[in-house]
């Protein structure tokens, strides 16, 4: 399910008369979907800093060219810029087919019906957007998509919530490989650097059956696109600085390729110090990161090709010192403070305990076979190594010894077969396995919260896609088997290891109907049945969760969660004046696993701790996401989006906790893609926007299940700008943003740190990137 390049090209060259510096490139740009011409598309020759705009019939013409190698950039509203390499030896006619059913709403690209073997709707964040927000966490980037929020623990740890589902329910795939991280606990972020990706894609719909892992709560696909056929070295190098936390980021991407062999290399390094709330520093919220990835593709022969991928993610994150507390008394004291404990006057880059040190490494090999006619076969194997060390403030010089030190080794293997039965029907089938070994280092001197265990997940799926006139249908089934071999330590004395085996079998199903309504609109309905085996933390947690001030108890008798989700989307595809997308969904989950506070407390020598136990409830989650774009003029447009969500526990009819509150976003954007001069400087592409977000107070809370009432509603004002200048061989992009422009004091319901401290105040980001 790779998303291929968003704009596809078809090049037809015709031999005319070749003369020195009198060559021409001409052609026509056509909308691939509707077969209509595209006016105002820019065709630009990078070497000559010269270009033209297609006329009302989509034609363009460039003359007086010398025989040479040229890099062309073709851009059009609604498409990401695409580069093309051409060796000009003769007059050339190009027929360029841009696929133009993609829609941009507020920088979020919506991809529907992009591939014939995939009817699900994806929302995508592109490379430019990722790189312009180089110091933003993965979950906060995807939170730009309506219906997606982030669940945070402090300022350096956040995980995505997709239409109310988070944690173990959200499946994240890095270049097709299920991320075998340690995602238990809200204080564990996904182990991925977004800067290595070429795009981030979110499937909110019913369920994506093609992937191993939870298909109950949405899928995030981290894509690494590599379709270049340019033999020269291209890429970019960028630097960003942000004032809040004095963070720096360096990132580079290099790629080159031929028809036979191509590669892409990315690297990034980031460092930041204490962030600042409007009135005080947030002590020990610094971080540092160093990451790299390498993708290599090679055509072996006419039928086989191979792909090698490796990535490494290495981070150290400080956790707010004032948010790290002991028992219930400490917690109550912390609530009463205006300014958190341990707040200092001075800014610092130092990262001290409590802190997390996380490494995640992945190596993948994929072989792809195609008979160029009906069948294609994918064989993948990937090994992942995950190391997580968490350091707490400890006695006896033990602060340098991790309190938790868990390693996870996993191997993923997959065989996928795609069979084109006829021009309307595609059948995809596959078998997958993920084996993992999770091992504690017992030198921590603390009993582990997660026991040593081996897990083994095997899945089988089959998905049929059928196209009939304007309708696309998708029908899928999936079966998963999960096996855990767990070696836990008894709570009773004497402490001994107990070996136990748990197995679960789950079946899932999916139906999708995608249809064209009129000329310019699409309706998509998906109904998915999904189930998820309980995760190891839900079964076996046992101990005081430091910083959460609770004694967490797992339950080894939990059943798998079973969900039925219906999702309906309607969107317009015209780009003339007004476009919108509306998505309504309803999800019923039986045996929804939830950490529920108990009426009893546990008396330890450290004091009284509330007891939380993993319990199962039947819940209903439903909501509506809306996004729209209003084109006020050729250069000015306005985006509006809104998300509403509600969840209830069915039996007791009380609200489900940890759901985002209703939120709204409105922006006004000025964008100009041709020559423009600002303050006497000439630019080729500029963009300014002012954005306001309003997050309502979460009234749907369960007071019994929380220490404090939900924080008040808040309004934030943000601004963004970007300007590009094309030079002979390079494009220079300056970009920046101001978030929380009014330096508003606020707290967010979905941030665990709301009990202790305010969110961050004003932050100005400035960056420069050279594309070459």
């Amino acid at each position, binding site marked *: 399910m790779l998303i291929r390049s968003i704009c596809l090209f078809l090049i037809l060259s015709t031999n005319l008369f070749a003369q020195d510096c009198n060559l021409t490139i001409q052609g026509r740009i056509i909308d691939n979907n509707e077969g209509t011409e595209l006016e105002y598309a820019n065709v630009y020759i990078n070497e000559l800093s010269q270009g033209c705009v297609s006329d009302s019939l989509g034609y363009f013409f460039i003359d007086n060219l010398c025989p040479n190698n040229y890099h062309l950039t073709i851009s059009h509203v609604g498409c990401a810029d695409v580069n093309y390499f051409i060796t000009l030896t003769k007059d050339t006619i190009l027929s360029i087919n841009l696929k133009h059913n993609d829609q941009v709403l507020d920088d979020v690209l919506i991809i529907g019906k992009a591939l014939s073997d995939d009817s699900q709707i994806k929302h995508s964040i592109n490379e430019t957007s990722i790189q312009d927000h180089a110091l933003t966490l993965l979950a906060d980037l995807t939170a730009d998509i309506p219906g997606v929020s982030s669940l945070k623990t402090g300022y350096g740890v956040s995980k995505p919530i997709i239409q109310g589902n988070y944690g173990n329910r959200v499946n994240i795939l890095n270049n097709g490989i299920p991320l075998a991280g340690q995602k238990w606990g809200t204080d564990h972020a996904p182990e991925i650097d977004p800067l290595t990706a070429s795009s981030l894609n979110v499937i909110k719909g019913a369920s994506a059956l093609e992937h191993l892992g939870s298909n109950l709560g949405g899928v995030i696909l981290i894509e690494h696109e590599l379709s270049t056929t340019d033999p020269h070295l291209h890429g970019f190098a960028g630097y960003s600085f942000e004032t809040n936390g004095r963070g720096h980021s360096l990132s580079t991407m290099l790629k080159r390729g031929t028809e036979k062999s191509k590669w892409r290399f990315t690297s990034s390094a980031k460092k930041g110090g204490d962030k600042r709330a409007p009135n005080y520093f947030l002590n020990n919220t610094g971080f540092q990161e160093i990451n790299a990835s390498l993708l290599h593709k090679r055509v072996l022969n006419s039928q086989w090709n191979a792909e090698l991928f490796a990535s490494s993610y290495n981070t150290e994150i400080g956790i707010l010192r004032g948010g790290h507390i002991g028992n219930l008394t400490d917690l109550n004291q912390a609530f009463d403070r205006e300014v958190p404990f341990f707040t200092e006057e001075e800014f610092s880059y130092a990262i001290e305990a409590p802190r997390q040190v996380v490494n995640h490494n992945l190596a993948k090999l994929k072989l792809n076979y195609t008979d160029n006619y009906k069948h294609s076969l994918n064989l993948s194997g990937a*090994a992942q190594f995950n190391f997580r060390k968490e350091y707490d403030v400890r*006695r*006896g010089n033990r602060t340098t010894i991790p309190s938790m030190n868990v390693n996870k080794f996993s191997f993923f*293997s997959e065989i996928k077969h795609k069979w084109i039965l006829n021009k309307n029907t595609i059948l995809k089938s596959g078998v997958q396995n993920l084996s993992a070994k999770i091992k504690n280092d*017992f030198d921590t001197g603390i009993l582990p919260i997660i026991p040593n265990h081996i897990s083994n997940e095997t899945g089988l799926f089959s998905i049929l896609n059928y196209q009939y006139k304007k309708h696309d249908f998708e029908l899928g089934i999936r079966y998963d088997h999960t096996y855990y071999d767990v070696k836990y330590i008894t*709570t009773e004395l004497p402490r001994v*290891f107990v070996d136990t085996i748990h197995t679960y079998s789950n079946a899932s199903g999916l139906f999708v109907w995608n249809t064209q309504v009129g000329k310019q609109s699409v309706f998509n309905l998906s109904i998915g049945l999904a189930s998820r085996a309980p995760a190891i933390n839900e079964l076996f947690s046992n101990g005081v969760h430091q910083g959460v001030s609770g004694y967490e108890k797992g339950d080894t008798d939990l059943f798998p969660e079973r969900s039925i989700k219906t999702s309906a989307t309607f969107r317009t595809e015209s780009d003339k004046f007004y476009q919108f997308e509306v998505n309504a969904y309803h999800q019923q989950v039986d045996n929804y696993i939830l950490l529920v506070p108990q009426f009893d407390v546990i008396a330890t*020598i450290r004091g009284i701790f509330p007891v939380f136990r993993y319990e199962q409830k039947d819940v209903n989650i439903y909501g509506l996401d809306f996004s729209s774009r209003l084109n006020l003029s050729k250069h000015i447009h306005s985006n509006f989006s809104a998300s509403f969500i509600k969840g209830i526990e069915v039996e007791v009819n009380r609200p489900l906790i940890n759901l985002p509150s209703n939120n709204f976003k409105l922006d006004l954007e000025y964008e100009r893609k041709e020559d423009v001069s600002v303050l006497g400087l000439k630019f080729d592409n500029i963009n300014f926007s002012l954005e306001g977000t309003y997050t309502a107070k979460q009234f749907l809370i369960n007071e019994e299940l929380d220490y404090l009432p939900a924080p008040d509603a808040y309004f934030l004002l943000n601004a963004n700008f970007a300007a590009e200048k094309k030079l002979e061989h390079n494009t220079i992009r300056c970009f920046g943003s101001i978030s929380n422009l009014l330096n508003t004091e606020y707290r967010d319901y979905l941030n665990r740190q709301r009990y202790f401290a305010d969110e961050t105040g004003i932050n100005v980001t400035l960056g420069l990137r050279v594309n070459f």
Partner: protein
Amino acid sequence: MRSYSLLFFSTLFLAITCFTSCSNDDDVMVPEEEEFINQAIYTLTAQNDPTDIVVFTFLDADGEGGLDGISTTLGTLKAGTTYNGVATFANTIDGEDITEEIAEEDEEHQIFFQTTVAGLTFAYTDQDPMGNPIGLTTTATTDAAGTGTITITLRHEPAKGASGVSDGDITNAGGETDIEVTFDVTVE
């Protein structure tokens, strides 16, 4: 092509061998809980009568989880008397004395004494190198008769310089609670 498929199948083979052979039966020892404290004892000895001893003991025999800890009070305090107090902490499961560790890191620790009995007061008789109290040794002075509770709190990394903290007021101390135990007390 051949080298790639060779690489692929050898990786697959390696992985399968690894995961079938790496079963979950590694011979590992149950880890020791190093910082763990499950016993706190506060002993009060009358200054005018060394045989007049009152002992407050909290013991969570099986550690956190399992059975709850139990607090016991042996003896009653006499009205209008000054006692010398000694606090000790231990891990009885692994047989470790934690008091020493606290004494070594005295600047990072402070013990707080709070009571609901009117007239019962506590004073520190020890100091860390910075001149701030620790609380391993104290005096307790009773006034009139009464009954109530004493709560003993051991804080790690408290703000010893914050207002009132060196006088034994816990309000501004912050830090993390390593111990918080409550005992019944009677003054006759």
